[in-house]
């Protein structure tokens, strides 16, 4: 928006400028668990074409969705959780994106400068920058509405830099609410290019819950033993479904598969709900030879509205693989 258009009008809110700048840079997804302080961002997303809001069911899940998304798309997803306890829940995901070098921009409202010297007494007071100092690739603070566009540019540029990774941007929350006229806006510069991760074969994106949890058995049974597999930067179970949903949302064409286990699925049922809410069809095949485990997974699929891919002793690995490849737009879970 040029300065001219502002004459005689109320200046847009700080939040509106954040969202427009993100959109102008090609960011199309903001993942956010609410709190009062992020609501101006939500309103602005609602008003702005070309950028949408995804509300996960925990900050942690949302942040792992962003990791997968950033890797698959090569454009950062933006995570915008509420301050204090919201940011507190991001720690493991920020570290994970640091390790996988996934481009993610974390934007958080922060307590205004006058409250920071006594942050421990402030309601929901947490020093975000010191809490995530070790995990984030870079951290930026914006306390003045004049600096909004510059801060967004710097954040996205750093997230896509060499190395790429999670960058945090704290914006003093009254800045998001304020309608301060601003002087100039730097011209939009092209962001560094970031190659999205490649898939193999039919552009299949194969993710693992973690390298330890998932033995080769399930991969072989699903005909996936030769595919290149990725997992979240933090190689531990419990994040794979979110990560894979992020891959799915970031790469709309190729099939996305997650090889996982029963416990991890049960620990991430929220992600199934969020996937369905986002219009992603989730399918599940159980390649565990134990019939009781198959029965439990079938029950889970029924209960959660997940499409069931029947696999039995007569189904060959190549048939399983075939049925995965057919599901171009689905998120397929292989439980072994």
């Amino acid at each position, binding site marked *: 928006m040029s300065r001219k258009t502002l004459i005689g009008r109320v200046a847009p809110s700080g939040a509106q400028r954040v969202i427009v700048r993100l959109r102008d840079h090609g960011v199309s997804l903001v993942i956010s668990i609410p709190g009062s302080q992020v609501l101006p961002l939500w309103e602005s997303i609602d008003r702005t074409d070309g950028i949408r809001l995804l509300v996960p069911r925990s900050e942690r899940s949302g942040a792992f969705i962003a990791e997968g998304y950033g890797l698959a798309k090569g454009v950062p997803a933006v995570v915008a959780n509420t301050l204090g306890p919201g940011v*507190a829940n991001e720690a493991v995901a920020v570290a994970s994106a640091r390790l996988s070098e996934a481009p993610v921009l974390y934007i958080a409202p922060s307590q205004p400068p006058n409250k920071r010297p006594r942050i421990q007494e402030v309601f929901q007071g947490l020093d975000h920058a010191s809490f995530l100092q070790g995990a984030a690739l870079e951290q930026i603070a914006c306390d003045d509405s004049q600096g909004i566009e510059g801060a967004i540019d710097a954040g996205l540029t750093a997230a896509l830099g060499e190395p790429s990774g999670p960058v945090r941007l704290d914006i003093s929350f009254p800045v998001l609410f304020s309608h301060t006229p601003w002087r100039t806006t730097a011209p939009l510069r092209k962001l560094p290019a970031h190659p999205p991760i490649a898939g193999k074969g039919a552009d299949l994106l194969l993710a693992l819950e973690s390298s330890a949890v998932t033995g080769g058995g399930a991969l072989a049974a699903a005909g996936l033993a030769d595919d290149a597999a990725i997992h979240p930067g933090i190689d531990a179970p419990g994040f794979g479904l979110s990560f894979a949903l992020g891959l799915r949302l970031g790469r709309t064409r190729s099939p996305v598969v997650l090889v996982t286990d029963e416990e991890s699925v049960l620990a991430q049922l929220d992600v199934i709900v969020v996937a369905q809410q986002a219009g992603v069809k989730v399918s599940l095949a159980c390649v565990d030879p134990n019939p009781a485990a198959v029965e439990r997974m079938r029950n889970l699929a029924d209960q959660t509205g997940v499409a069931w891919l029947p696999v039995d002793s007569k189904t060959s690995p190549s048939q399983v693989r075939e049925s995965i490849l057919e599901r171009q737009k689905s998120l397929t879970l292989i439980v072994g």
Partner: protein
Amino acid sequence: MSESQPISLVPVFTATGSLTGIPGAVGMRDAQAATHAADGAARVTGRPAIVVADGLADTLKVASGLVTAAGDRQLVVALVSVDPLDRAIAEPALVTASRSWVDGTGMTANEVVGRVASHTPTRLPVAVLLDGPEQTAAVAVLLAESIAPGPIAHALAPVEQVEGLNEALADLREARRPLVLVGHGAAATSDPEAIAALARAWEAPVCLTFAATGMPPHALEAFIAACADDVPVMAAGTVPWTEALARADRILALGSGLSEADWFGLTDARVVRTPVVRVALDPHPDGVAEMTVVAEAGAFAVALREELERGGVLTVSGWREKFTEARQRWTEAVDEEAEKDAQRDRLTAALAMREIVAAASAQTVFVGEGGASGMWLASYGWRRPVMIPAQHASIGASIGMSVGIREAAPDLPVWAVVGDGAFFYCSRELAGLADRKIPMVAFVFADRSWNAIRLVQTLFFRRRTIGTDLPPVDYVGIARLHGCDGIEVRTPGGLAHALAMAQEAREKPLVVQVTVDKGSIPFVGANLILAELDGVLGKLVAAIGTSGLVAAARDFPALRSNVRVILGALKK
């Protein structure tokens, strides 16, 4: 502190497979949930509890959980270890979250325990970085044995030697409308008789902070008994509580971890404008209190009472009694709200919460969250032990906390109240409760909304309720997947049936999906909304106009009084 529930061992929680071998350690699914469990155990006992973890992922989850515990100064001791290469990632999170930090790498278990013991009297969580699971196990075992059961001794200077004491006493003596504000630490560990006797002598009403309403059950019982009928005790966030804070001319705040929301020390909405004298265990670095006296709360209460006995009391007559009446009116109003719905045979959040509290046994410990359902719980359940994260009003911790409460106090029934938005944060821990045949009850308030946030949209964003609707989810079905029993209720009759099941629950956790309308707004919590938006509140109200705010509140009888409070505070 009463000795009615001696704790023989400090409970240990972990989600890390390599550490489940510690004798007595409770294995959980998730390390953040394990930290919430230790937090719950600390809340219910008033004493330390331990969480152990190994590896970067679990250590960072512990750091996330510690933020909530530290906000309410719960004595969680976190013993963690990471690969030396990951230390730079983990350490800042642990140090910032716990506010109290020990680098135990290379130390003997004895040395580590000595260092931890020197930290605990400040009532802050302690994070301890260790070399690996072996050292962690050794420290955990030694620590669990060495923290003796019984009250925590405060290694503090006798109150007479405290700096600023005479000045504080002289100032407080001038009060005409005095008030005693009691925080969690003081409530949990100080002599309730001493505090009640001071309030009685000073003719002062008593306000509890949100965290203090979650004091250990035996402490709450003793506190209410000590205050008897003549000292009105008001629960945080209720209208009489706010009025008392707004009208007092001297506030004595007993507690180390008080936040601005506990006394409305806000920039925009400054309800409390009177000097606050705070009594804390450590000098606060940048307190907003007029004066901080470092002393044990009970000892200070005795000193002030003696001062009053010498110099006389200046309290205006009828000041304290007013609050006995106000509290009574408030209780009746809250009850009427539910009764109206009962008459219409409509299950609302108000009615459901009233019935749930009424059906619980006297020993039941309630656990709640920072959302609207937690505010409903605080509206109806405050005479019970109600554990809700206060400083951070965190959501998602309640099921984890419930595990810890059960483990630390196995004789007490635990009923959690969870929002549907937050249900999934720790829902997998239901499976562990089922495995261990623990009959905890979780009421999921299924209003298909992030309702506390919707409330803010209703009030301050011209009712544009963007993004706060939730899709329908079968929480009962999900409970069954985790090995629990489940039942959905939609009517008062259905709820009565479910409550009978909850009372009978013996072998398994029970999840009750309470399906209610999203339109309803709780009674308490105006102070939290004020605190959350402090810095922009004045502008928001100016933008929508006073009449806009009043109109937004019109449809919600329960909200009207809270809006009055908001507007009143802003005017000042």
